[in-house]
C-alpha cells in the first residue's frame, strides 16, 4: 500500500541525500581552503547564501526555478522553430517536447522527477551546513600535524589528503551527526514538493471517511496515524544515535584528541 511504500520513500531519500550532501559539503569546505580566489569565493558564497535563506523559502523558490530552468534549456535545444514567447503574462509556456518529464510519460516518471528535485534541493541545503562543519573541522586539526607533514617533505596535496582529511572527520562528526538528525526530521518538507511522503498519507488515511466514499468509514484518526509517525521517527533517530556513537569511537581511535588519548590509556591499562 502507498502508506507503507512512503516509508520507503523517506528512507530512500535519506540514503541518497546524505552522501550527496556530504559530497557538496566536502567540496565546499575544500573549496573554501583553496588557493584559487574564485573557487574560494564561490564556496564561501554558497555556504553563506544557502545557510542564510529559510529552508521553506529555498524549497519553494529553488525547485520551481530549477524545474523551469531545465525546461527552458530543453526548449532552446529542441524547439528552435518556436515563435511564441516563453513567458506569456503569468504563464510559463515551453513547447511540448521540452516538458520535463513528458506530458505523455506515466505518472511514475513525474514522481521520480519530483523526487530527484527533492533530493538535489535537500543535498544543496544540507551540503551548505555540512560544508561549514567540515571547514571548521579542518581548522581544528592541530597545526603541529601539518608542520610535521611539511617536515617530511609532503606536497600540499599530500598533506591535505593524507594528514588533514583523515583527522578532520573526528572533529566534524559531532556537527555532522547533528545535521543527520535534522535531515531525518526535515523529510516531511517533501510534501511541499509534491512528493507523497509518510506525512501526506497519514493525513489522507487518517482523515475522516464517511460511509458514502469508502468501505472502511472512520472518524478523524489522524492523531493515531501521527502518533505512529512519531514512534517511527523517534526509533529512527535512536538507531542513528547508536550507529553514530560507534563511528565516533572508531574515528577517535589513535587520534591526537582527548577521546583518542583516553582510549589509548584504557588500552594500555588492559
Amino acid at each position: 500500500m502507498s502508506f507503507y511504500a512512503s516509508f520507503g520513500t523517506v528512507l530512500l531519500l535519506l540514503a541518497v541525500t546524505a552522501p550527496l550532501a556530504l559530497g557538496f559539503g566536502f567540496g565546499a569546505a575544500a573549496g573554501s581552503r583553496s588557493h584559487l580566489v574564485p573557487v574560494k569565493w564561490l564556496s564561501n558564497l554558497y555556504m553563506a547564501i544557502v545557510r542564510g535563506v529559510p529552508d521553506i523559502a529555498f524549497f519553494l523558490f529553488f525547485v520551481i526555478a530549477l524545474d523551469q530552468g531545465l525546461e527552458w534549456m530543453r526548449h532552446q535545444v529542441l524547439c528552435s522553430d518556436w515563435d511564441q514567447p516563453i513567458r506569456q503574462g503569468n504563464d510559463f509556456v515551453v513547447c511540448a517536447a521540452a516538458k520535463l518529464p513528458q506530458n505523455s510519460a506515466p505518472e511514475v516518471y513525474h514522481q521520480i522527477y519530483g523526487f530527484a528535485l527533492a533530493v538535489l534541493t535537500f543535498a544543496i541545503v544540507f551540503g551548505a551546513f555540512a560544508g561549514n562543519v567540515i571547514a571548521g573541522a579542518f581548522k581544528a586539526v592541530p597545526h603541529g600535524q601539518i608542520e610535521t607533514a611539511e617536515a617530511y617533505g609532503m606536497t600540499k596535496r599530500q598533506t591535505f589528503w593524507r594528514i588533514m582529511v583523515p583527522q578532520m572527520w573526528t572533529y566534524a562528526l559531532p556537527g555532522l551527526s547533528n545535521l543527520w538528525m535534522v535531515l531525518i526530521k526535515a523529510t516531511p518538507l517533501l510534501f511541499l514538493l509534491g512528493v507523497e511522503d509518510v506525512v501526506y498519507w497519514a493525513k489522507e488515511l487518517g482523515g475522516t471517511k464517511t460511509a458514502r466514499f469508502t468501505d472502511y468509514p472512520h472518524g478523524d484518526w489522524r492523531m493515531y496515524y501521527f502518533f505512529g509517525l512519531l514512534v517511527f521517527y523517534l526509533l529512527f533517530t535512536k538507531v542513528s544515535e547508536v550507529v553514530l556513537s560507534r563511528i565516533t569511537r572508531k574515528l577517535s581511535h589513535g587520534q591526537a584528541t582527548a577521546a583518542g588519548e583516553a582510549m589509548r590509556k584504557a588500552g594500555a591499562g588492559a
Partner: protein
Amino acid sequence: MKNILLSAAALALLAGAASADTIRLGTEGAYPPYNYIDDNGEVAGFERVLGDELCARAELECEWVTNDWDSIIPNLLSGNYDAIIAGMSITDARKEKIDFSQNYTPPSYSSYAAMSDGVDLEGGVIAAQASTIQSQHVVDTGATLLEFPSFEDSLAAMLAGEADAVFADKDTLVPVVEEGTAMWVGEDVALSIGIGMGFRKSDPELRAKFDTAIASMKEDGTLNEMILEYLGEDSPVFE
C-alpha cells in the same frame, strides 16, 4: 571523461522528444464528493467521472494529478498539469490569473454546519478552507475567520470546538450532516456562480475542446444525471 558527461547531458536533454498528447488534470483529492482519494489510492468522485467523460468526448487522453489546494493555480501556470478540475468556483479574482471553461455545475449554495444550534454566525469564529469563496465570505460577514489548508482541517477545527461553525460548499457538508456528526445552522448562502475548469490563459485551444464537451453533456442531460448521482438529490441542476 568530460565527453562522456557532456554527451550524457545532451542525451538527457534530447530524450523522449516524442509528441505529447496526454492532458494532465490537476485536482485536490480532498474535497468529497467532488474529488477525493478512494480506498485504492485513486482519484474518485464527481469530478473524476465527469473529467473522464469529458476527455472521452473531446477524444483526449487524460491523466490525474493531485496537488495541494494552496498551490493549485501556480502549478497550473508553471505547466505541471494542463487543467484544474477541483471544485473551483468561477470568480473574478481567479479570472485575472487563469481562464475558466463554462460552468459544469449551476450556481450552488454554501452552508454553515455546527455542533449545536444558536451559533452567532456574524460575530463568532467560523472555520473555512483558505483561498476559497467561503473564506472570503466569512471575512465579508464580519465574523472571525479561521483558515485551514484543507476542508478536512476546517471541519476538524469545528468538531474540536476551536471554531463555532464550519462554512463550506453545501454538497461537501451534506455527507457530514447526514452522518450526524454536525447539524445545519443558519441559512444557505447562494455564493458560487458555478464551478468551472481552469486553464492557462495561453491555452485557449484546450479550453475550447473542454467547453464543447461540457456543452454537449449539458445538452443531452448526462451532466444533470451525474450531478444528481454524485453530488446528491438536492443539488441544483441545469434547467
